[in-house]
């Protein structure tokens, strides 16, 4: 199957951002916290995106910041998906009080707005990278739990799951071999979205000062540091916003394409 144009574009930009994040140490022209010029220098050959509020090279900050943002968002997404989908499937397969307990706990967690919950937890905990990832992962896992339980409930009543149970299969086989492959399509679609929400969430937290702590850079933090510049017509704060937007779109273009390829039930999927 030929790759559609939208997928190619999405894949190109996703690869660009992830590549830049992974190889930040080699690509970034300057150090993360290195002061190389005056504050808010305009774009030039030496500083393609200019400098920031205290004279650090903005391109380097963007690349280092992308590394932090993408790493935290990806780790949180992986955590939320592993936890949310396994618990969701378990609730659907087991039913009864296990389902009730898990679902009501999730309802309880979801009744608190996630940003407020995160702010409360982060204001009492030391704000380190692992804490950030765990907090974000746990909060997002509630959404994944809801989705995977809803999808799995429909699958557990299918005759082939009943056949597997009557064969004497263990829960692990039923969850991973009978249910997961059939629940994958909505989960992949959700994963693209969730990753972007995680990017937005960590950026929001950093903007509010409770996320990634200076001198570490991240996209939300860069917006925060440079927001005064907007008043003087300096675009430094808009660049990370642009990066977030393009990353969001391109990741979802890729997710759509993966979805198209995996929803076919006939042979030839890859």
């Amino acid at each position, binding site marked *: *199957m030929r790759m559609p144009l939208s997928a190619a574009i999405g894949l190109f930009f996703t690869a660009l951002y992830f590549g830049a994040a992974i190889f930040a140490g080699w690509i970034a022209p300057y150090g993360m916290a290195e002061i190389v010029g005056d504050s808010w220098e305009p774009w030039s050959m030496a500083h393609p995106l200019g400098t920031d509020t205290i004279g650090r090279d903005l391109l380097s900050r963007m690349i280092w910041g992308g590394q932090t943002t993408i790493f935290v968002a990806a780790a949180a997404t992986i955590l939320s998906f592993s936890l949310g989908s396994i618990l969701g499937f378990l609730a659907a397969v087991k039913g009864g009080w296990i389902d009730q307990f898990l679902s009501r706990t999730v309802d309880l967690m979801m009744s608190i707005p996630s940003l407020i919950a995160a702010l409360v937890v982060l204001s009492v905990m030391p704000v380190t990278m692992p804490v950030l990832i765990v907090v974000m992962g746990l909060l997002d896992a509630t959404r994944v739990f809801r989705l995977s339980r809803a999808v799995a409930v429909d699958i557990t009543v299918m*005759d*082939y799951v009943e*056949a597997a149970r009557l*064969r*004497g299969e263990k829960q692990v086989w039923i969850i991973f071999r009978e249910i997961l492959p059939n629940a994958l399509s909505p989960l992949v679609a959700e994963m693209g979205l969730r990753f972007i929400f995680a990017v937005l969430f960590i950026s929001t937290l950093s903007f509010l000062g409770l996320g990634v702590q200076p001198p570490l850079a991240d996209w939300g933090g860069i917006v925060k540091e440079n927001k005064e510049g907007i008043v003087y017509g300096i675009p430094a704060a808009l660049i990370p916003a642009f990066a977030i937007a393009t990353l969001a779109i391109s990741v979802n273009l890729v997710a759509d394409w993966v979805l198209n390829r995996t929803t*076919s*039930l006939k042979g030839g999927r890859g």
Partner: protein
Amino acid sequence: MSDMLLEVKNLKIEATAYPPGEAPRDITIVEGVSFKLEKGRVLGLIGESGAGKSTIGLSAMAYGRGGVRLTGGEVLVNGRDVLQAGPAGLRALRGREVTYVAQSAAAAFNPAKRLMEQVIETTLHHGLASKAEAEARAVTLFARLGLPNPETIGRRYPHQVSGGQLQRVMTAMALCPKPDLVIFDEPTTALDVTTQIEVLAAIKEAIADTGVAALYITHDLAVVAQVADDIMVLRGGKMVEYGTTDTIINRPAEPYTQALVSVRSIDHNEKSGGAPVLSVKGITARYRGTNFDVLSNVTVDLPEAQTLAVVGESGSGKSTLARVITGLLPPSAGTITFVGRDLAADFEARGKEDLRELQMIYQMADVAMNPRQTVGTIIGRPLEFYFGLKGAEKRHRIQELLDEIEMGEGFIDRYPAELSGGQKQRVCIARALAAKPKLIICDEVTSALDPLVADGILKLLLNLQKIEKVAYLFITHDLATVRAIADSIAVMYRGKVVRYGPKSQVLAPPFDDYTDLLLSSVPEMELGWLERTIANRKMEAAGN
């Protein structure tokens, strides 16, 4: 020309297929079909699924379902070519000159509106009558179709009437605008035999009374023989044979028609005696949270390598019996003995051997197989799970099983979606056989299949029984299947076994009332069967 209502000439219907990994291409669904229908006549369109019978039926309304295009030929309704009619012309045609009765009445009604509102909707929309007139006509039709309380039934919602009644209400809906032509698309297929006969009689009477012409689409030749004047046999979108009902039923010319007429002619010698592999004693069961016994005091025995058919209409508890035996629904009283061992009530408490020796085949092969697993994985899993087979040894055994179900090479890496309906059911049989069971529960395994395909499956099951010495508990509502395959029969009605014994005894008089009703409701491939049966019933009712 005045009497010619519908004339189809050289009809061609196409659709676009989107095979994965290939460029889309056009496929021809129907080609070169021509027929004529005069006023007041009924033409039966018959064929297996995929024969194009519904597609042809809908072409009389110039309607192509989901991407289907009517690309050639002419469809003349009252002398006008409807394929050339514009949107306004079609609006005038549909629901006025031509109306449609769908297969699944339950899915065709809007559950949020009262029946009357839906029955008279088209009539009002076309401005054919005032609301009061339309309602009066609907009530007359309800009465003519034998619906209870014709005056008030229109006030009910679709879920408040039974499936058979709903189908009759839909027939009333189609007849209400006084159309020239009604298309019946498998109107009785989803109904029990005992209900089917009533609906069939009602439809036939209504057609005769109103003088409407009809296209009657079905896969059941015995049904169409009762209502149609002419029959057209279709296969793969092409006409096989076209003639009067008498000719098609009694003197079919084409081999395919002959096969359809003589379907279910399986020879099976009844076996009896032998040690029971399964004994069900005094089973009473109810679903959790209800206080109604779905099964009460059911006792049956099934000897080794024999077939016990459990017969009854929907709601008789026959599938519940299967759930109790498999342990999905623990009974509230009674015991189950399987190969000399007492079976635990709940399947989770049963040992691996018990699970292995008791296998199940489902009605819908589509949902009984994981769509994400290949045929090899589906059949291979029990081999691996119960016998620890791996690698080449496993693959060899899978191929053996595929040969046994007459599928041969080249299927092992396919996905279920790449199989036909009959092939899917065969794979399910192979999966059950892979466990080397002593008993297979077959829950309506042929009801979703075309008659010829179902025939093949039944023959296969009988063959396998001889080779593998496996016993079948065969759940079905189809008495023809029972005649073909059973050694003993249990007739169930409202959760009780009303008649039980060897096949020859159960199917021989004297009958109890319910068995008599059930047996006499099965359409026979014979002209005038419907009238005779209805007349007999009326006489009996009068005699009582």
